[in-house]
């Protein structure tokens, strides 16, 4: 691989902050501290520890991690805004860093003036901006307001204009910090198309985002930071699942985070396999009897209830004979519900909603048409095989009343479950999104 194929090379990058210095803000401290040399490690924060990775031309990298993991510090160093304490960064080509959109925008200036101002601040020449000006305005879609001061803009218009400047810029490496979530659905679609076109033109992108769907849809690679160290580098599907798992069970994740230099992948995968035990152990012990994937509530315990019914068992499982009771995506998924009905309303049903780990609803179903009358019910819902992808999901159980209102249960948290494949192969990494239906391909003659 020739050197010019690598657009960015980060070697053993570390950054340490001493918060003591930041406290020293008044002149009094200035005089006092000139006499006292402070060498203690008090207030020492290792924002980045020994971070190394490489990015090739045309590749895109998403950086994820909990707040304070060092994501923004890394981006700031890459963009030259701050310096590392040790280590080295080599960038081949022009960098454009967008740590915030609309940097230097002034509310009293018109949209047109701000386009030029912002563009020039970001390092474009006047000529370049003039060439791109029409494209920028066209992209922002606020043509008729371009000569008004931006303080008269709605916040959506403001962001759209600022974002339009950024996406029209020309650079070999683009750095974005949490700036993608702007505008309405139509504008976001436009941005997605724009971003995809960047990749085909061999531009590289680094994206810091909390929005996992951004990472998955824009990035081929992802890097997870934990306490300043790289804890995962690999396909975004796996990384985002890990990230969400850790944030869903944040108490657990602390213990994982503290292993400073985990081997990429292996450390993470281990936690994923044990996820269910983790999830169950987080449920308050006094409330539920935990048996594998089955949650039961005894008669004396606080059962999940609403006005219409109460539950005494929820179970999520697939083929019970599968190894280690894993839920395999190639098997049917069963959700078994047992409980009691309190009212005598005729049209009452119980249902569930499946969401991905970030909470985005995927689909739902209810026992519409089934008679739940009588005091107890015992139902099993079966989701066809090959519906979900490999990953972490949550299921919420709720009641649907006679006027099709969803009524949730008190004392019932979303139940997390993880899906697996029988034997993981390389191809599994290329299935994106939360769904993985079995698609058939045929050759036409």
């Amino acid at each position, binding site marked *: 691989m020739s050197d010019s194929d690598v657009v960015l090379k980060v070697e053993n990058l570390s950054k340490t902050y001493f918060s003591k210095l930041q406290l020293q803000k008044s002149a009094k401290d200035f005089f006092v501290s000139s006499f006292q040399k402070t060498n203690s490690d008090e207030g020492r924060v290792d924002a980045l520890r020994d971070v190394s990775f490489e990015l090739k031309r045309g590749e895109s990298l998403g950086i994820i991690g909990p707040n304070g993991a060092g994501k923004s510090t890394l981006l700031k160093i890459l963009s*030259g805004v701050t*310096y590392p*304490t040790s280590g080295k*960064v080599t960038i081949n*080509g022009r960098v454009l860093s967008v740590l915030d959109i609309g940097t230097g925008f002034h509310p009293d*200036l018109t949209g047109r003036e701000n386009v030029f101002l912002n563009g020039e601040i970001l390092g474009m020449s006047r000529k370049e901006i003039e060439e791109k000006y029409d494209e920028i305005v066209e992209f922002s879609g606020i043509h008729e307001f371009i000569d008004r001061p931006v303080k008269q803009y709605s916040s959506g218009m403001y962001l759209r204009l600022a974002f339009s400047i950024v996406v029209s810029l020309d650079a070999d490496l683009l750095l974005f910090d949490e700036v993608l979530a702007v505008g309405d659905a139509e504008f976001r679609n436009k941005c997605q198309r724009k971003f995809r076109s960047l990749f085909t033109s061999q531009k590289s992108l680094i994206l810091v985002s909390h929005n996992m769907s951004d990472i998955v849809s824009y990035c081929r690679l992802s890097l997870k930071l934990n306490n300043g160290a790289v804890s995962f580098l690999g396909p975004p599907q796996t990384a985002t699942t890990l990230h969400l798992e850790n944030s869903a069970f944040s108490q657990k994740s602390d213990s994982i985070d503290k292993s400073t230099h985990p081997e990429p992948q292996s450390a993470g995968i281990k936690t994923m396999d044990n996820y269910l035990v983790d999830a169950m152990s987080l449920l308050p012990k006094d409330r539920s009897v935990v048996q594998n994937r089955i949650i039961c509530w005894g008669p004396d315990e606080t059962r999940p209830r609403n006005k219409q019914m109460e539950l005494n068992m929820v179970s999520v499982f697939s083929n019970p004979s599968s190894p280690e009771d894993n839920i395999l995506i190639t098997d049917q998924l069963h959700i078994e519900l047992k409980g009691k009905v309190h009212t005598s309303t005729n049209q009452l049903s119980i249902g569930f909603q499946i969401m991905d780990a970030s909470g985005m609803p995927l689909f739902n179903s209810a026992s519409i048409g089934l008679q739940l009358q009588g005091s107890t019910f015992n139902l099993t819902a079966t989701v066809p095989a090959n519906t979900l992808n490999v990953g972490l999901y949550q299921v919420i159980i709720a009641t649907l009343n006679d006027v099709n209102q969803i009524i949730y249960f008190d004392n019932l948290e979303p139940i997390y479950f993880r899906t697996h494949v029988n034997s993981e192969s390389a191809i599994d990494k290329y299935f994106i999104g939360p769904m993985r239906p079995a698609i058939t391909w045929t050759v036409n003659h």
Partner: protein
Amino acid sequence: MKKTVITSEQSGFFDYVKRVWQYRALIRVLAKRDIKIRYSQTALGILWSVLQPLIAIAIYTVFFYYILGVSSGKVPYPLFVLPGIIGWFQFTHIINAGGMSLLNNPDLIRRIDFPKLVLPLSQVLSGLLEVLITLGLMLILMAAYGYTPSLRIAFVPLFIMLNALAGLSISLWLSALTIKYRDFHHVIPYLISFGIWITPVFYPTTILPDSAEQYMFLNPVAVVIAGLRWCLVEGVAPAWYHFAGFIPVMALFALGYRYFYSVEQTIVDHV
């Protein structure tokens, strides 16, 4: 293909100067932004830059010339006081806006990679607009009083540059110190409101006792104003020893630059 290497080692003096030169477009852009913001959304717009010195002339003339009877020699008082106003306004603009330039631009500092010296420099540049407008006003006023400018007017740029250097030296200190110790934020108004009394803006140095007059020129702005008067209207040519005031300015500039540079390395963690 441009190649950038980022390490913990920071650029040396000459690299830094080279970097500032590479960013000259940004200096111009920020100066332009500053000017636009100053006059946008005002009914009178750029007219203010003419009105401000005119109002100052009127007040000084009434107060010092008519009421206190300050003598300006053969030169009509308004013509005498305007060069003082030009020099003083330029200087105070630079220390005021330049001194606050780091504190006022946290978004740029946190998000854009550029040599921070660009910020006070852009204020020096944006201040030149008012200087030019006021100089134009001066020429009109001279014509009204029947004064023909002499060839000495060619020296005006020299004194304007010296003034900028003096202002920049102080604003380097103020801007860097303000970032670390907000206390200095309160120093700037005092510098401006008391500084005018030790600067011959509205009085000639001749009203001072001889023993005090020479010390007056330790104030670099006093040299600049005396120089501007000499260039534009009749006045005493500044003697070579008057420029002695620029020795402390050079020292302030060199040390201020070093301090500014050292603050710049950690500035992102402070703003």
